[in-house]
């Protein structure tokens, strides 16, 4: 099993390499270290969000509200910064984590205590969170001039040759790697996805674990809210609109099974980088950015077809015969 997983990630890494090589043939400066680091930095927020989403998808759930959570938390933090420029940035960052976790926990409680299917819950909170952004901001924007210089500068700082934003992604990835491979919670997330009924018998509180997964995803989304706003220096109702599906796409391309129980941190990181490379490559090779959406759609379909071939279950021969006869 482990070998198979490694296998899939290697294929994805090769696919990324192939794209980089092909683009470099057209435009030699594409693969210079500086540009590759830019691509990594550009993909950082998506990587973090996709890791949070993975924790949820592993438990056979889905969080459609992450982008709306990001927009809402980002708006709150941006408005606080505009109103009280004196509040130190680390406080705002901690606040974004807490608000995001709170919104995620709200999803989690509905899934845990009321047993409402996650897709319904997060479909509802997606529209609620997005609407609240408009309500608290009155539809107004918070722009660069209203934000304090620190608010904008922090993630752009360079530490050991890498932008701080990239470091956030690296630290988040390390934390998720430890969570998934070295903690009981991580094992529970996988166990629930593989077999919820068996998990109950082994003493895992399925509802509570799902709740924790949603809270983690929410905390990541909230934190990315601060990062997103300070990176693109604009907070509006439309921030990251439709991005929830890009996050899921990164997971799927990275080999996370939507049926739960399968997925790895390196895979998800590669999935996010793959989308980042595509987005960076298109303008370089003079393809209109309008192609971007169709290409990422095709990439998702290709990835899911390849994943399914790897996951194809053995057994149930009798059913296959019945199927062939129909």
């Amino acid at each position: 099993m482990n070998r198979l997983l490694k296998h899939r990630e290697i294929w994805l890494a090769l696919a990324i390499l192939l794209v980089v090589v092909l683009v470099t043939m057209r435009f030699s400066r594409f693969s210079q270290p500086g540009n590759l680091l830019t691509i990594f930095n550009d993909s950082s927020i998506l990587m973090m969000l996709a890791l949070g989403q993975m924790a949820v998808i592993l438990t056979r759930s889905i969080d459609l509200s992450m982008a709306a959570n990001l927009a809402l938390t980002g708006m709150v933090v941006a408005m606080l910064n505009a109103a009280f420029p004196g509040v130190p940035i680390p406080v705002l960052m901690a606040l974004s984590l807490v608000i995001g976790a709170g919104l995620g926990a709200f999803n989690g409680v509905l899934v845990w205590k009321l047993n409402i299917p996650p897709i319904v819950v997060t479909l509802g909170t997606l529209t609620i969170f997005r609407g609240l952004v408009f309500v608290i901001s009155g539809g107004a924007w918070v722009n660069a001039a209203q934000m304090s210089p620190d608010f904008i500068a922090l993630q752009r700082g360079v530490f050991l040759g890498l932008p701080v934003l990239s470091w956030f992604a690296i630290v988040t990835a390390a934390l998720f790697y430890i969570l998934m491979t070295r903690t009981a919670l991580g094992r529970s997330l996988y166990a629930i996805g593989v077999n919820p009924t068996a998990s109950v018998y082994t003493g895992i509180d399925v509802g509570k674990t799902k709740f924790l997964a949603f809270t983690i995803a929410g905390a990541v989304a909230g934190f990315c809210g601060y990062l997103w706003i300070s990176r693109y220096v604009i907070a509006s109702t439309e921030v990251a609109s439709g991005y929830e599906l890009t996050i899921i796409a990164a997971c799927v391309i990275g080999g996370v099974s939507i049926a739960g129980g399968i997925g790895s941190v390196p895979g998800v990181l590669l999935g996010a980088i793959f989308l980042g490379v595509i987005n960076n490559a298109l303008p370089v090779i003079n393809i209109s950015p309008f192609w971007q959406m169709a290409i990422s759609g095709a990439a998702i379909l290709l990835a899911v077809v390849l994943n399914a071939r790897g996951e194809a279950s053995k057994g149930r021969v009798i059913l296959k015969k019945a199927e062939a006869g129909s």
Partner: protein
Amino acid sequence: MTDTSSYRTLPDRLDNPLKSAVLSWESLLVLVAVAIFIVNSFASPYFLNAWSLSDLTFNFTEKALIALAMALLIISGEIDLSVAAIISLASTLMGLALQYGADTPVLVAVGLGAGIACGAFNGFLVTRLKLPSIVVTIGTMSLFRGISFIILGDQSFKGYPASFAWLGQGYVGWVISFELVLFAVCAIIYWVLLHRTNFGRRVFAIGNNDVAARFSGVRVDKIKFILFCLTGLMSGMAAVLLTARLGSTRPSIAEGWELEAITMVVLGGVSILGGAGSIIGVVLAALIMGLVTFGLGLLNVPGIVMSIFTGSLLIVVIALPILFRMWRQRA
């Protein structure tokens, strides 16, 4: 995403039919609809007026057409997130046909044909390649709308003929719009299809247990394929009506409609896990969402704030019966 913790149990005897009718989801929806209707009439002096009520129907008919087919698809245990993208692609292709001088019948054929083709593509990926529909349709959602962006970029198609515009703006008689009549006809067809035919029984059977259905001789894949094609067809139909009503095509047309259509279906009492639901419920849910958004619109509430109400409505309407059951069990 099916939850194995909720086993269906067979009761020793069925409830009194009258009692179960009164306590049914549909009667709850009727109550909600009537309540919103009354609140609206008091809240705005412009609400109780034949033309206002006619305008109200334009708010939901197009989405509700999709919801009808989506209901069957969700009952069978699948989902289609690409419906709004299908509208975008179908509308773009109609615009393209217009550039080559196509007339109204050709435009309609292009719209419906594009819808069916997109639905068949989804159906093929799900049933032949055995892929989960939620992922497939997230992919095709980007693909279909992406193709519209490739064709149109930041441009738009305009100049649809008047006979085409009538489909989205015209009235059959007095205040009854063509869209409303079409929706009523489709609702009846889907009601018959789901509740009065073998096909409908099989859709329920697949949703409850597709392995058992397969062993009972139901052609699961074929039926699911047909359901995807139907959802595509209804999206194409919505594309025709919406394009005719707006009179122009942009790649971003109908953005976010997939979530609204699914909200209608779930609000209508269709189980997102498959196997249960009714067309009457979906029609009532569509009416409720139309009433809410129109009523709030008369009160000058911006669209984005309305979405808070629809989102809350979705969660509250689903949570209330669950809370009620928990409270009754504890008492």
